[in-house]
C-alpha cells in the first residue's frame, strides 16, 4: 500500500468506515472458505499411509501455527511503526492482534498435543519446536497483560510494543527448531521451493488456511473497532469532566 494510503487510514473515522465495510465480507468469505476446506479435509482427502485418519488434524493445526507466527510478526511490525512513525492506529493494532494471535497459538499447541498422543505416544515433550511455540503463546499473553494492567496506558503500550519487538527473536527459533535440534516434530513439508504434500491434501489445507486468515483479519478489525469506539467514549468522558471541573 502506498504511504499516502496509509496516512489516509491514520484518520480513525476513515479507518472505521473502511473496517465497517470490510468486516462482513471477511467474515462471510472466511467462513465459506474454512467450511469448504474442512469439508474436503475431513471427507474428500485420503488418510495418510502412516498416520491414518489422524492426519486430518493437519487442516486445523498447520493454519493455526502459520497464523500464530504471522500474527506475531504483524504485531511486532505494528509496534515498530508505532515507535518510528507514530501512526495513530499502530498501537491499536498491537492491542487488537494480541488476543487473536494468542488464540491461534493456543489452538496450535492444543491440536498439536492431541495429534502427538496417537502419533508420538505422548501429549507433550519439551523439545525445541514445542517449547518455542509455548514461548510464543506466553509472549502474546505478556503483551495482553502489560497493555491491560499497566496504570499508565501510554507507558503500558510502549512496554508491550517493546516486548512484541524483542519477542521476534523467537520466530526464527520456531521455524528452524526442527533443523537445529533433534525433535519428534517433523520438518516443514511446504517450502518456497515446493511442497511435499499431495495435491489432494494440499488443496484443503490451503483452503482452510485462507479461511482462517480472513477470519483472523475480521477479528482484528472487530477488535480495532472496539478499541476506537472505547477511546471515543473515554475522550467524551474527559471533555465532560473538564467542562464540569
Amino acid at each position, binding site marked *: 500500500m502506498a504511504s499516502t494510503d496509509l496516512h489516509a487510514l491514520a484518520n480513525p473515522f476513515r479507518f472505521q468506515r473502511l473496517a465497517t465495510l470490510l468486516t462482513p465480507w471477511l*467474515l462471510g468469505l472466511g467462513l465459506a472458505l474454512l467450511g469448504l476446506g*474442512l469439508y474436503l479435509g*475431513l471427507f474428500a482427502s485420503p488418510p495418510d499411509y502412516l498416520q*491414518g*485418519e*489422524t492426519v*486430518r*488434524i493437519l487442516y*486445523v*493445526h498447520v493454519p*493455526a501455527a502459520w497464523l500464530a507466527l504471522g500474527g506475531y510478526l504483524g504485531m511486532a511490525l505494528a509496534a515498530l511503526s508505532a515507535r518510528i512513525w507514530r501512526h495513530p492506529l499502530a498501537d491499536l493494532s498491537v492491542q487488537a492482534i494480541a*488476543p*487473536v494471535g494468542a*488464540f491461534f497459538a*493456543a*489452538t496450535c499447541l*492444543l*491440536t498439536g498435543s*492431541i*495429534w502427538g*498422543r*496417537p502419533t508420538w505416544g505422548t501429549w507433550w515433550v519439551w523439545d525445541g519446536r514445542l517449547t518455542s511455540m509455548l514461548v510464543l503463546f506466553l509472549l502474546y499473553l505478556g503483551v495482553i497483560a502489560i497493555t491491560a494492567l499497566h496504570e499508565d496506558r501510554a507507558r503500558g503500550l510502549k512496554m508491550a510494543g517493546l516486548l512484541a519487538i524483542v519477542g521476534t527473536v523467537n520466530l526464527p527459533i520456531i521455524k528452524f527448531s526442527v533443523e537445529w535440534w533433534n525433535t519428534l516434530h517433523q520438518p516443514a513439508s511446504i517450502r518456497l521451493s515446493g511442497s511435499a504434500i499431495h495435491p489432494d491434501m494440499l488443496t484443503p489445507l490451503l483452503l482452510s488456511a485462507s479461511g482462517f486468515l480472513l*477470519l483472523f483479519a*475480521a*477479528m482484528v478489525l*472487530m*477488535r480495532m*473497532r*472496539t*478499541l476506537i*469506539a*472505547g477511546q*471515543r*467514549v473515554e475522550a*467524551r*468522558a474527559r471533555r465532560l469532566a473538564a467542562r464540569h471541573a
Partner: protein
Amino acid sequence: MNQIAFVAAAYTVTLGGLAAMLGWCLLAMRRAEAASGEVR
C-alpha cells in the same frame, strides 16, 4: 484409542474456540460502538 476420537477432539477445540472468539469480538464491538454512538 480410536483415531477418529483424536480428530474429533482437535476439531472441537479449534471450532469451539473460534466460535467463542468470534462471538466475543462481535459482542464487544457491538457494545462499544453502541456506547460510542450514545455519547456522540
